[in-house]
């Protein structure tokens, strides 16, 4: 018999601590598959965020560091500049990257730092208990917006890919989703390309992955995927926002 699908080698045997149905696990696997396929396991260094994915260093067989809240792109910059042969990526949530770490993100992008950022957007603060995030949708009910997010009071969600696409620094920006098999496959391609760009010294790549938070959205795992498709996709359209290799 031929093996069609098995756990990627870069993924360790530690059981994931995430809630049942949390798509963090899918994205962890996609990163591991990209690293395996490019054969860069020995020189890859990841930077863990603060948030649900803070324990991500347990789940990979390559080296990881853990940064202060939002500072992962700054730490990754240091690791990359200390030895440019390393392949450095950060894995951050929306509370980490789009809120407290916005300055680090924008400046790393503006500098065109040769790192890869995997950005998980699930429109809520997961680990801290479901507070409103900079990416929460208008009208979305969270712990700190019990009547729904009111844009006249709390402002509008931040569209990270669109915003960074206005800068000259980034090489590659794409928003993907993981709510069904087709989108998981295109997410895999995007993540692999983001790592390839770094291997080829092209510069800053950021992949925004639309993700679910079953517990804090208060939905069953399959209902959460449906909510993502119906509510998040219209507001956060998937697609390539910047790809310098395509511009002549």
């Amino acid at each position, binding site marked *: *018999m031929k*093996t*069609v*699908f098995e756990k990627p080698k870069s993924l360790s045997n530690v*059981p994931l601590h995430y809630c049942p149905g949390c798509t963090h696990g899918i994205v962890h696997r996609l990163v591991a598959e990209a690293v395996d396929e490019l054969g860069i396991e020995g020189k890859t260094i990841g930077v863990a965020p603060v948030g649900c994915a803070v324990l991500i260093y347990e789940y990979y067989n390559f080296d990881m560091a853990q940064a202060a809240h939002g500072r992962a792109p700054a730490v990754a910059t240091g690791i990359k500049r200390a030895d440019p042969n390393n392949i450095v990526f950060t894995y951050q949530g929306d509370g980490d990257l789009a809120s407290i770490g916005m300055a680090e993100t924008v400046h790393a992008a503006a500098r065109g730092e040769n790192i890869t950022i995997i950005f998980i957007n699930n429109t809520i603060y997961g680990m801290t208990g479901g507070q409103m995030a900079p990416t929460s949708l208008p009208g979305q009910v969270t712990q700190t917006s019990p009547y729904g997010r009111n844009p006249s009071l709390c402002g509008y969600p931040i569209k990270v890919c669109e915003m960074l696409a206005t800068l000259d620094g980034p090489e590659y920006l794409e928003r993907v989703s993981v709510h069904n098999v087709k989108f998981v496959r295109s997410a895999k391609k995007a993540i692999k390309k983001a790592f390839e760009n770094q291997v080829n010294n092209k510069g800053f790549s950021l992949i925004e992955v639309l993700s679910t938070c*079953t517990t804090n959205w208060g939905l069953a*795992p399959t209902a959460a995927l449906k909510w993502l498709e119906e509510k998040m996709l219209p507001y956060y359209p998937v697609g390539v926002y910047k790809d310098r290799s395509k511009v002549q």
Partner: protein
Amino acid sequence: MSKVIIQTDLCKGCGLCIEACPKKIIGIAKHAINAKGHHPAVVLDEELCISCAFCATMCPDCVISVQK
């Protein structure tokens, strides 16, 4: 040898594989509880499996491996 191997002791019973399966042959083992306290997913009729690996692609805990 079975085509779909589910590590039932690590499965959290989220059901994303059930939703993804085009043949609808995966279900939740309602009368079994694993060490984590979840009802794990089981393959109900392996004869119908086409080894598409959609279940494994959607599994957030990477507990499914597929053979052909």
